[in-house]
């Protein structure tokens, strides 16, 4: 490797040298230590941007100084019908320490509504086709007082299958239909309280996706849209974002939306766990001791207990910005703020990209990271964390580290099981699967009922997860699942397997050459590789 590449180009980029410490990698519910080849480039998350010292004041300021419209208080009249929509449990990840930012936003907004004589208020979780949140999760998200005051009649999950609860708003000139939650659409004012966790979130996606039905969603949650998004974490070059923008214009024509967006930093762990995002070369003796203690303790626990433990550690995110007003200017400001946190300037693509898959995803909160979700984290999220061009060169090898266990949550992911076992052996072609099976799964009465009355993801959701990995699948030459404890899961996903990372790197080098450039994403990582 050329010497000029070995120097430190950014505080979040580290090159492995002969005396470098081994790196910590998540692999499902485990954390492993791996020695990486000399010259490997390791991308760390940027240090957390300092959080706002008084987030209540920041939210109030945003409500009173909105972008593109009158302040919230000036839009309120006694007796009006108001709906507040909030993001669901899929963000931020892991669920943040209480009080959740949504709770703070709601407390301030509800106080303002009450002060202006607005009593007809509903709070709707914009879960779209995600699973409905449980009462416990809903209480945790908004706090005891709001929960007691509004649940269940005036604080509930959106139901994308309740025909009477939906209303068609219109369609775009591209024939993309838009049907939304009736209560939200028929309100005099719809307030959307958002947390922007990754650049894909927020903006017009909040209302047009979070409160829509299956038919509206399938117009843009489809393989071609994903292929045309380069990447879907880059709103400027995302066809998904473009389509949501088109739908958002219809939303703005028919609804009065007051959008509140917040940006958060990337302080996933604080205190005893903060070493997980640190450069291992800078570890103190205490950091090493904490890691070894954690590894020892977790090694003694069964997988389910390890999972439970990881899911019970709340994230320590802090709010870094809040804007309110019209959707587009608000979102533009928040995206800009988000990239200040996430952007890591990177020069040069790599031939081999290594990423450990932690037990963290938007779709397995308090649940199992099943094989389809491993796929969506690897080829979907981790692959798409770039701007301008992929971190991995076309045809390169992606090594993901995960046990790839064949386990599914029967309550939350019932249709995933059928998708994985019945459809993937037949085809991995996203277009074929969409044409032949997506509607069948979406209309399966059992899955519909489990979505509506239980806590299951919608029957069509595993398809979206498969599409989410589509541009990764088209771009990557080969995927190697390192540490996979069985052969059939990687095989079903179209991947090769290796016992460990060393073997996987050796395999990758046989394809890419012995001087292949290797980059590792140091997970857990919320960051965007800004490619030069």
């Amino acid at each position, binding site marked *: 490797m050329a010497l000029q590449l070995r120097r430190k180009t950014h505080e979040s980029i580290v090159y492995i040298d002969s005396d470098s410490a081994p790196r910590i990698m998540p692999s499902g519910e485990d954390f492993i230590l791996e020695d990486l080849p000399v010259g490997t480039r390791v991308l760390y998350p940027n240090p957390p941007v300092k959080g706002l010292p008084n987030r209540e004041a920041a939210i109030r300021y945003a409500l009173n100084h909105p972008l593109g419209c009158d302040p919230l208080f000036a839009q309120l009249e006694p007796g009006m019908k108001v709906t507040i929509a909030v993001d669901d449990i899929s963000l931020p990840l892991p669920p943040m320490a209480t009080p959740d930012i949504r709770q703070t936003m709601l407390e301030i907004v509800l106080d303002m509504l009450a002060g202006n004589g607005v009593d007809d208020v509903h709070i709707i979780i914009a879960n779209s086709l995600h699973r409905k949140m449980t009462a416990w999760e809903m209480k945790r998200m908004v706090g005891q007082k709001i929960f007691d005051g509004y649940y269940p009649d005036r604080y509930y999950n959106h139901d994308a*299958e309740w025909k009477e609860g939906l209303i068609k708003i219109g369609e775009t000139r591209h024939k993309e239909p838009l049907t939304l939650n009736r209560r939200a659409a028929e309100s005099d004012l719809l307030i959307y309280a958002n947390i922007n966790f990754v650049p894909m979130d927020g903006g017009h996606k909040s209302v047009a996706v979070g409160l829509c039905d299956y038919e509206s969603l399938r117009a843009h949650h489809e393989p071609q849209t994903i292929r045309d998004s380069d990447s879907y974490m880059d709103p400027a070059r995302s066809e998904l974002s473009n389509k949501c923008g088109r739908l958002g214009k219809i939303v703005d024509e028919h609804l009065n939306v007051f959008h509140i967006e917040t940006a958060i930093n990337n302080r996933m762990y604080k205190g005893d766990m903060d070493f997980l995002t640190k450069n291992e070369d800078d570890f103190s003796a205490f950091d090493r001791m904490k890691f070894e203690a954690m590894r020892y303790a977790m090694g003694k626990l069964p997988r389910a207990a390890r999972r439970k433990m990881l899911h019970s550690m709340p994230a320590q995110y802090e709010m870094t910005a809040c804007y309110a007003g019209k959707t587009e200017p608000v979102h533009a400001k928040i995206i800009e703020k988000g990239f200040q946190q996430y952007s890591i300037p990177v020069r040069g693509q790599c031939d081999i990209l290594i990423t450990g898959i932690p037990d963290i995803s938007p779709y397995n909160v308090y649940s199992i990271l099943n094989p389809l979700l491993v796929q969506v984290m690897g080829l979907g999220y981790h692959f798409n964390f770039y701007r301008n061009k992929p971190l991995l060169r076309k045809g390169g090898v992606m090594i993901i580290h995960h046990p790839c266990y064949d386990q599914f949550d*029967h309550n939350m992911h019932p249709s995933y099981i059928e998708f994985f076992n019945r459809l993937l052996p037949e085809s991995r072609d996203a277009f074929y699967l969409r044409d032949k099976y997506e509607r069948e799964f979406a*209309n399966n*009465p*059992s899955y*519909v*009922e*489990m979505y509506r*009355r*239980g806590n299951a993801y919608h029957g069509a959701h595993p398809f979206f997860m498969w599409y989410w990995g589509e541009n990764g699948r088209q771009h990557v030459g080969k995927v190697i699942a390192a540490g996979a404890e069985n052969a059939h899961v990687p095989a079903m996903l179209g991947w090769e397997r290796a016992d460990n990372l060393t073997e996987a790197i050796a395999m990758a080098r046989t394809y890419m050459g012995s001087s292949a450039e290797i980059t590792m994403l140091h997970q857990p990582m919320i960051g965007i590789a800004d490619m030069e």
Partner: protein
Amino acid sequence: MAAAAFYDLEGTLVSTNLVHTLGFYARNQPNLVRSFTKSAATLLSVPLFAVSDQYSRKVFNDLFFKRYKGETEDRMRFFADELFEKVLKPAVFPGTFELIEKSRSIGLRQVVVTGALDVSVKPLMEYLGIIDYVANRLEFVKGVATGRLLPPVLASATKASWIRTFAEREGINLSESFAYSDSMSDLPMLSIVGHPAVVNPDFRLRQTALHHDWPILNLK
């Protein structure tokens, strides 16, 4: 080829079971003394019914339907509407309507296959808009129940066998069909369709459903 959704009834679409129906008829006897003795006998038999059902659905049926011995057919038919209004209608699970409506909307024929008595379920079937149903029939001699069931006695494998015959006759593709039940005794019925699902299952059926990766529904 057409497909269908086959439902067990009691415990699956409604919260009541066979004992609730028996209890209703026991309470509504021609005189107070008989109502009291019949009700007491039904109550005292509940543990026996529970144990025998765990052992074998056939043994349960033999024991259970004997309790109807001596009931007159016209009386049972007379009270059927009241049974529906007071017992069955309030017991329909909220999710039942949604499930049937969704199944119907995708073109599935709606078929109820139940071990309950035909006279007692008829009004409920009309209420749910289900035309195709099959239920057990009591044997009546000179208008009085003998306490035996007319064959075929619908339980366990007989339900599956009836479904097979029905599917053949009506041109229904079982691989594309759905079946719903809450009871382990309906395992044969669940096993012969392409899309089985369990509803409000007990522990044994839940474990079986988990083992086979069948959807587990809660219609309550």
